[in-house]
């Protein structure tokens, strides 16, 4: 089984408190901690487990800048065999379709049976997998939290749907799957693992390598664009309890008594 996993370097929501810059139109990016998108780790783990069982190769690909190479190396330290970085000034400002078009070009250079994405990333759109599948005319299933890849030309996948229920589907290969968290337990990557792959060459491909017209992707080709970031005024929000911990607890207990919490 040849598996391609699409990954992304994102600001880590567990490690950052997000603030706006002084102009108030973008994140203050000076001290942001970045990591690989959480969903993508589950996707890479799933790919590795499938290949361990049925044989094959796992390739990780990302669209990004030089710094995105670090997430490819991290996923290679997990056990992915190869990495590819799609990087070109012309790719900057791509919307979901722009990213999907770039990934499509890379997919067509290989011979993949399975293409994974994370179910969503930092922007929370969950769009690239479905777009990529439609561009490739391949079947798609999103939010997948179970894969049975033992059969030949098809696999069985479970989709996580509302209420904790699971929708089982049989899907023909090749196909595109978006992976939901919780499908497996991604393995730990230590510093030694990262060191092992530190010198592996990662090919970098630009617009001409992919045979893509730079004007069709990036900011120029984007039909949907983010204008700015802002923090909405949502009214008063919570009544914040202040003081020493003791004082806070005293106030809280009174409120809990009044509301039936005690």
């Amino acid at each position: 089984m040849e598996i391609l996993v699409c990954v992304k370097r994102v600001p880590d929501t567990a490690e950052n408190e997000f603030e706006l810059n002084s102009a108030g139109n973008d994140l203050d990016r000076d001290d942001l901690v970045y990591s690989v998108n959480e969903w993508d780790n589950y996707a890479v783990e799933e790919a590795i487990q499938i290949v361990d069982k049925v044989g094959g190769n796992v390739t990780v690909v990302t669209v990004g800048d030089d710094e995105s190479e670090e997430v490819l190396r991290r996923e290679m330290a997990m056990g992915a065999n190869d990495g590819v970085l799609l990087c070109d000034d012309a790719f900057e400002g791509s919307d979901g379709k722009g990213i999907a078009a770039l990934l499509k070009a890379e997919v067509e250079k290989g011979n993949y049976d399975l293409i994974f994405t994370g179910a969503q990333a930092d922007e929370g759109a969950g769009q690239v997998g479905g777009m990529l599948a439609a561009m490739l005319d391949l079947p798609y299933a999103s939010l997948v939290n179970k894969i049975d890849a033992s059969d030949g030309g098809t696999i069985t996948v479970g989709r996580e749907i509302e209420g904790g229920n699971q929708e089982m589907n049989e899907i023909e290969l090749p196909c595109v799957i978006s992976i939901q968290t919780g499908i497996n337990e991604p393995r730990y990557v230590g510093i030694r693992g990262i060191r092992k792959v530190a010198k592996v060459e990662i090919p970098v491909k630009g617009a001409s390598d992919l045979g893509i017209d730079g004007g069709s992707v990036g900011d120029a080709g984007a039909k949907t664009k983010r204008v700015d970031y802002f923090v909405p005024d949502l009214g008063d929000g919570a009544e914040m309890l202040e003081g020493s911990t003791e004082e806070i607890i005293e106030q809280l207990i009174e409120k809990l008594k009044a509301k039936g919490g005690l």
Partner: protein
Amino acid sequence: MTQIFAYIPHQNGVAEDIAMEYPAAAQKIDASASLTAIVTGSGADLDAVVNEMTSIYSEVIKIDNADLAYPNAEVVRKALVNIIPGDAVFLTAHNTLGMDMAPGLSVKMDSAYAADIVDIEGIEGSTLKMIRQELGGAVSTHVESDISNGAVLTIRPGSFAPVEGGSAGGSITDKSSDAGDLSVKRKFLEIVEAEVGDVDITKSDVLVSIGRGIEDEENIEIAQELAEAMGAVVSCSRPIVDAKWLEKSRQVGTSGQTVKPKVYMAMGISGSFQHLGGVKGNPFIVAVNKNPKAPIFQVADVGIVEDILDFMPELTESIQDL
């Protein structure tokens, strides 16, 4: 004139709540636009939903086909491409069906795509201005889509005011024969129902709900002690279940359980909309989080900026001393 089409998700012959929310979204896109509901399905369930929709929408399109009896996104998408005009604005819910079906639909229609829309500012020329969130709800963004060749938007459930009552007396158009070839390479097999756990969190009036802030599996004991002191039950957000620290049956959220407690103690939970989607009935929400910017503080009744690992044991002790 803008043409807007709204896809109606339904179950057991009843439309989901989002069906009542699309009209407000459409109004905000363009008050003069035409708005048409599209319902796909099969048989009596479909007819029930179509009839229900005629009280809310002036135009309802019905697509009846045995292959649509279960909404396999691949099949729904194929049918919709043949029904929706190329330059229309298409609305669907940002739910597990919408996320499955809509991104590919925008490719097949060659239209703009904008996901998980929480508010709409309107159209200027051929630019549609909308609001969405990023980074788990930590920040909002203004986005603009060029809709000169149409658009596919997924709308976050609960974001637009529902229409009440309704006596639109809408007309029904049967477009079943226009759906075309519905053969796809993905076959729906069955629904596997969620497992029932040892504790039913939906039955408890007070929930001590833990999130990432619990940091480690062995700290769950701290939450259990607080719950015990309060006569409450421990529930959790998604990361705790992903880490296999608690059973899936304890998860609150759209992909877990829907709870209606009197008091909801959100301990170290940031407050994503998927999580809050599972908290209903307007409970008294207490949020404790060491991040003063956590989105949970926008919806909680009472907020406390502290580390739950320090705060919970002290609270437990004070309650035990009462």
